[in-house]
């Protein structure tokens, strides 16, 4: 079944549950990982925007990777970074126009949102449904690609 | 003459034979590596001028042939007068006129130039009667002493290119492979892999491109058979490769020749051009739809490039580092395409097998090791040179019958085969038949065919040290066991040769050797410890003498020997000048004195003393 990741900044309260969930989910050897999601000031009063990877159609991070460590996972739609292949050149960190490839100093590795392999923890723990992982309703009209 | 169809080849052959029949006498001057080093080129020039000057009726420069290696390099430069088979040795430029006057114009023999048999002390007129030749079986090397090096007419006159014509017109590729398989031909490069099986595997790999490569990187120090073949009979190598290409479906071939053989490159290049001009290489060979091109790839001085995967990298213009061969190069070789790689001698065997048939070839040699093998018989043996014997001939026959025994009648100590990958065999193994399997079982290997004979003045520790030092220099440095392991093994042999080793070091060497063998990436490392292991196995006493008694029985290891001047000294002063440290003093006709403090044991005095007055102990 196809899912979609929905972000509704207007519902975000800036509670940062998503950050915690992300960080714990990506722990290595019981050391918490760097969060891949950041609720940031949206510019208006009390508006928070949970910033995370948009899983672009034509991702700059994938283009910037010279060793093919970043690849689209067709099952989840996430662009995943293969840590075994990554050579830590920081090209993707510099190239992402949304700043969503991040260097995790604690673990000395580059991280980015992988949608938790198909069940994003942030959406699970979001109390206000500002983040949601929802099955797509089957549409009657289908556009041939 | 461009050959459009096979019939033209036959016509041409007959025409050449008819033409050659008119030449009454042929002067064959050996231009092998040994004779060239002894000045054969000057002799040829002299022959040319004298022949021109004298204008002997019925004789032109055509009668003069610059042949490949005749084999008996010790006696070079060699000149043979055919058809009589007159055999002149150690010919000098000043002898040329004499030879023409006496033996060409007239039918006289020049006694002083004949070979003197040391056993009977009699002059021998014809080379067929000399022991060195009579015990050999020449098949692959047969053309070498008989034909002009790059003359296609000579090659065709000696049935050249008939095998290719036969293969292209009356055989299918599969039948060519079957014939080679049935002949039992095994790779002459050293490991002895069945050639037919290699070709069959390559043919069965589906690919748009197949390659044929000839390995002419004869890196084993002390071996020069392939050099002699490439220089003296290049067409046989080309023909063999072309047949192989036809069998496996290749269109492009490479000959990889080592840098130290410039003449081989020149002659092969010439031969390739001639073959192209005559329709024997290139598009539509002999008018058939089979096309094949050969390119020469020059090595640049790296022993490891004799290893197939390193060689292929070198051909591609890269650093010659081997890769692991869990996927074999017949399947994924040059540019990852299926590739047949055989050595020079293997390819030179192919035309003969195709021409004379598998069962004819099968009868030569022993059942599992058919055919002959060329060796360069060198070292402390009386008759050094290039030889070819049937497989299964014993070491004793080779060293004593053909080689005439050890120089100065000294005792035989060991024979080294297989170069840095092989081992040293002692006197107890003299009756070992020489074939792939027996040598391997004895702890050595066939290798490409260097056979180095050693006498009691050769120290086996020094030999092991020499080979390890060679390999440390030649290791590509990619894998750890070879790069670091051989380095440490060499360091340990140095320790032994300096008398600083302990008994435990011997065991350490054996253990490390085993690890280098199982751990190394390519054949260089996997066989690198062989010279060490075989010398420890057969000459353990000698190692113990170095370790326990701090003594080098052969008088070679410098840290353990002293030079002394004995009463035999006549005071000739010959040794004074060569001594680099001025350690020897003395007046004319008085016994000289050697200052041990200054002596660096370089051996310069020992080498010049004509009175055996310098004692090594």
């Amino acid at each position, binding site marked *: 079944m196809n899912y979609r990741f929905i972000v509704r900044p207007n519902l975000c309260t800036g509670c940062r549950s998503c950050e915690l969930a992300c960080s714990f989910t990506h722990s290595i050897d019981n050391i918490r990982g760097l969060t891949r999601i*950041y609720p*940031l000031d*949206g510019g208006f009063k009390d508006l928070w925007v949970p910033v995370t990877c948009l899983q672009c159609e034509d991702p700059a991070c994938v283009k910037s990777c010279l060793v093919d460590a970043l690849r689209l996972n067709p099952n989840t739609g996430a662009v995943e970074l293969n840590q075994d292949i990554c050579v830590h050149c920081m*090209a993707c960190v510099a190239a992402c126009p949304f700043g969503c490839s991040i260097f995790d100093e604690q673990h000395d590795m580059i991280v980015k949102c992988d949608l938790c392999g198909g069940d994003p923890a942030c959406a699970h723990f979001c109390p206000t449904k500002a983040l949601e992982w929802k099955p797509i309703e089957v549409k009657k009209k289908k556009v041939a690609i | 003459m461009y050959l459009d169809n096979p019939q033209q080849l036959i016509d041409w052959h007959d025409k050449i034979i008819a033409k050659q029949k008119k030449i009454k006498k042929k002067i064959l001057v050996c231009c092998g590596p040994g004779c060239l080093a002894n000045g054969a080129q000057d002799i040829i020039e002299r022959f040319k001028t004298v022949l021109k000057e004298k204008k002997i009726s019925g004789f032109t420069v055509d009668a003069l042939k610059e042949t490949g290696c005749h084999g008996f390099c010790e006696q070079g430069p060699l000149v043979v007068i055919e058809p009589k088979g007159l055999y002149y040795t150690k010919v000098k430029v000043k002898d040329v006129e004499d030879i023409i006057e006496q033996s060409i114009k007239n039918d006289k023999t020049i006694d002083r130039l004949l070979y003197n048999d040391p056993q009977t002390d009699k002059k021998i007129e014809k080379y067929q009667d000399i022991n060195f030749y009579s015990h050999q079986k020449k098949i692959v090397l047969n053309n070498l002493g008989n034909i002009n090096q790059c003359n296609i007419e000579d090659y065709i006159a000696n049935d050249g290119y008939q095998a290719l014509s036969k293969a292209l017109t009356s055989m299918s590729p599969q039948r060519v492979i079957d014939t080679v398989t049935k002949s039992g031909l095994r790779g002459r490069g050293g490991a002895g892999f069945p050639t037919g099986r290699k070709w069959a595997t390559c043919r069965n790999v589906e690919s748009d491109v197949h390659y044929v490569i000839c390995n002419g990187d004869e890196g084993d120090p002390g071996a020069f058979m392939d050099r002699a073949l490439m220089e003296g009979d290049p067409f046989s190598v080309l023909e063999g490769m072309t047949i192989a290409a036809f069998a496996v479906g290749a269109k492009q071939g490479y000959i990889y020749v080592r840098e130290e053989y410039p003449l081989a490159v020149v002659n092969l290049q010439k031969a390739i051009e001639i073959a192209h001009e005559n329709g024997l290489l290139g598009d539509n060979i002999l008018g058939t739809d089979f096309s094949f091109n050969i390119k020469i790839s020059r090595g640049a001085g790296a022993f490891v490039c004799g290893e197939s995967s390193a060689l292929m990298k070198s051909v591609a213009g890269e650093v010659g580092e081997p890769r*692991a061969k869990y*996927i074999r190069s017949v399947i994924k070789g040059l540019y990852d395409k299926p590739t047949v790689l055989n050595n020079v001698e293997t390819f030179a065997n192919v035309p003969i097998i195709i021409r004379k048939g598998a069962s004819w070839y099968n009868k030569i040699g022993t059942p599992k090791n058919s055919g002959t093998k060329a060796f360069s018989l060198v070292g402390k043996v009386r008759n050094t040179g290039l030889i070819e014997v049937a497989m299964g001939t014993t070491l004793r026959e080779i060293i004593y019958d053909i080689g005439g025994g050890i120089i100065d009648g000294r005792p035989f100590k060991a024979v080294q085969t297989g170069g840095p990958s092989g081992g040293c065999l002692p006197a107890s193994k003299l009756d070992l038949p020489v074939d792939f399997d027996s040598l391997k079982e004895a702890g050595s290997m066939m290798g490409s065919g260097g056979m180095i004979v050693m006498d009691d003045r050769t120290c086996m520790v020094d030999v092991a040290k020499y080979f390890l030092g060679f390999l440390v220099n030649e290791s590509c440095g990619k894998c750890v066991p070879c790069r670091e392991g051989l380095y*440490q093994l060499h360091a340990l042999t140095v320790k032994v040769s300096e008398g600083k080793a302990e008994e435990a070091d011997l065991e350490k060497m054996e253990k490390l050797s085993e690890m280098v063998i199982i751990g190394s990436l390519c054949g260089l490392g996997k066989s690198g410890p062989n010279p060490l292991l075989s010398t420890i196995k057969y000459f353990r006493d000698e190692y113990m003498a170095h370790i326990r008694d701090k003594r080098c029985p052969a008088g070679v290891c410098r840290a353990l020997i002293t030079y002394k001047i004995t009463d035999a000294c006549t005071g000739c002063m010959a040794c004074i000048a060569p001594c680099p440290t001025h350690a020897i003093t003395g007046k004319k006709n008085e016994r000289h004195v050697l200052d041990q403090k200054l002596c660096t044991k370089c051996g310069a005095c020992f080498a010049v003393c004509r009175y055996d007055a310098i004692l090594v102990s």
Partner: protein
Amino acid sequence: MVNLTINGRIVQAKEGEMLLTVLRREKIDVPALCHHDAVEPFGACRLCTVEITKEDWNGHSNYVTSCLYPVEEGLIVSTHSPKVNELRKTILDLFLARHPNSPEVRQLAADYGVLKTSYETVVDGNNCILCGICTRICDAMGFHAISTVGRGHGKEVAPPLHQVPPDCVGCLACAKNCPTHYIEYIFDNNYLTIWDKKFELMTCSRCGKKTITKEFAEYLSKNRDIPISYFEICDECHRKELAATMGQITSWEREA
């Protein structure tokens, strides 16, 4: 799928997979110093050697480097047989003789019980174990800035002509993946120096943070079709910018 037996346990693997990949997946600890998934297996350090056999090999066994050996049906693998352990010990012993000061080498050797080398220490030994990861990654990234130089025991990793490497863009991949941290680099204010080549760093136009080198950014922009403007802002400021932009939209969705 092929079935093989590893240390007595039956394991399934994909056809064409290398043995080491399977061992790593099965969490079997086999050391390897020259392996990196970004580049083709090399087989230089030989530490990942394992013993293999098959039922029909009549008791004969073979030693192969698992990083390069494709899995086969019916393969019987022992990763820590006595001979294999002895080989690893010997290799680490040899390493220790050549690189006595490398903490990584010493640690690994100590894990295998080798505390002191039994061979002669190499006088000019440094910490470069010649695993070739740096040069191979540099090649894989398409720069070819450094390579091995020379051969045999005297082989080393160096830039061409032992001079400042013209093709280096300062991506630092060589240094960051060196298993013994031998390749040095220095950050100094606006500059990065590696292989004696000094690089100007990109500076975030918002906050002034330093990111990758200018040459690397220009290379990516030119060869990988990424607007150079992307590199002018650091990741943190990029995120802030995104938040500000998104603040103006109520929600957005992406199909997954």
